[in-house]
């Protein structure tokens, strides 16, 4: 039992990251109507700028700032492509484009970072924050969950209390009607891509030391993140936050059970399947009647 709890708590860091990446995915979907498969890859690009600078001997915090700036820029670049050329495309076309971009970013990233070549990833927040049920909870865990909760609160406040947020909600509902009213649609869309790029990068910088700092591994964190977003049905920030954390906890617990440990990477897939079946139950019921 204690081993299970230890593993669950160890899964908190991953859960916080899934939650933050998931909340960013919901933010992007609600505001620019894109199911974004490049979310984690954008953050990975920024994280590897930090790694490159750190390995070259630059001080850590300026390197972190440079990495976040790079992640923001990559996010804006992807956003520019999506807004400029696919602004009026269907949701499925946009999602397919981001999958293609993900493949491209991973290919470029692996080429530039040397694939499986081990990297020296600095631990930004080493050490333990507190003990819970006899288990050490790391500062990284607390920070990722805190950052995810902060992003959720800020996103809610930003969208509901500011004029820019109001314009973004209008833009998400009817982009052309918003543009006809003089709203700077392209600028606002790029703002969304830039903001999510910055947050994603910082989250991945925190979690990277606990994961294999490999460009592909970090980029594919988008899978559990989208599973978390699906728990919130791509609408609710708070349900996405909870979904991401629970997903991390379940993954952590699964790692301590020998018989299921090797299948734990399939957990996000099972969550996606379960949520889709659950969300379709009313349609099935109506059909059956």
């Amino acid at each position: 039992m204690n081993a299970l709890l230890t593993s669950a708590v160890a899964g908190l860091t991953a859960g916080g990251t899934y939650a933050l990446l998931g909340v960013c995915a919901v933010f992007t979907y609600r505001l620019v109507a894109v199911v974004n498969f490049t979310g984690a890859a954008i953050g990975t690009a920024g994280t590897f700028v930090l790694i490159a600078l750190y390995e070259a001997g630059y001080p850590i915090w300026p390197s972190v700032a440079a990495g976040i700036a790079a992640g923001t820029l990559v996010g804006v670049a992807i956003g520019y492509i999506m807004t400029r050329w696919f602004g009026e495309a269907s949701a499925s076309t946009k999602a397919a484009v981001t999958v293609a971009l993900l493949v491209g970013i991973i290919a470029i990233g692996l080429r530039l970072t040397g694939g499986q070549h081990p990297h020296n990833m600095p631990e930004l927040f080493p050490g333990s924050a507190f003990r819970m049920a006899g288990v050490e909870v790391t500062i990284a865990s607390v920070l990722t969950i805190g950052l995810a909760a902060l992003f959720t609160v800020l996103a809610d406040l930003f969208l509901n209390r500011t004029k820019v947020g109001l314009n973004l909600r209008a833009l998400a509902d009817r982009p052309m009607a918003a543009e006809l009213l003089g709203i700077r649609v392209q600028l606002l869309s790029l703002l969304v891509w830039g903001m999510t790029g910055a947050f994603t990068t910082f989250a991945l910088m925190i979690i990277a030391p606990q994961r294999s700092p490999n460009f592909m591994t970090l980029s594919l964190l988008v899978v559990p993140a989208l599973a978390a977003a699906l728990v919130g049905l791509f609408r609710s920030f708070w349900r996405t936050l909870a979904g991401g954390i629970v997903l991390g906890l379940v993954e952590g617990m699964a790692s301590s059970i020998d018989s299921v440990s090797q299948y734990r990477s399939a957990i996000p897939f099972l969550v996606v399947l379960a949520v889709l079946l659950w969300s379709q139950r009313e349609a099935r019921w109506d059909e059956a009647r």
Partner: protein
Amino acid sequence: MSKLVVSNLSINRSELPVVSSLDIAVESGAISVLLGANGAGKTTLLEGLSGIIPVAGGTIEIDGREIQKARPGVRSREGLAHVEQGRTVFRQLTTEENLRVSLHAGADIAEAYALFPELVQRRSVKASLLSGGEQQMLVIARALLTRPKVLLIDEMSAGLAPVIVTRLMSAVRKLADNGLAVLLVEQFAALALSIGNRAYVMRRGRVVHDGDCLKLLKSPGELHRLYLGG
């Protein structure tokens, strides 16, 4: 003086010409009514004017400034407002939020409520829950708050009860009387001609008639002939 001057305008859809060599002018303080059968090119013309679709040739001027290459948002800031077909309210926002979105410098939400007092009681209601007439009032009021010089309105009566259409028409007339230049595309020809000043009739992408509204209203046979050709 004309606020909106359109010269030799051509617009294509899927590379096929829908509007060809079209000239119209819309004056301040007046309503120009644009009539024509389905497929004449009226909606395409309005979408070309506001920048939803690109124009293939010709010029669009507001107060002498050419805007035909500008994006829709820039045209809006130059003073062109477009009330699209289909009551394009922001469904998830309340009535008041819909109005706040469009609020340009110098405009006041009170102007919108003064034009349509019916919306005051509905200010906190989600736009998706408003009636069709209220939604149409909202999109016209929203356009007004962008401080336009020229207002394009496309089929505002579609699917609405006659009493609501009459109410909307009188509001549009009021806007024109306050100095706005209005280009009104309408299926209820008689009602539109009764509030309009200048009438254009389009057929197959071209203007086939340009004249006085009242004169055309008194000649239903002529209007019928212009719609159908021959």
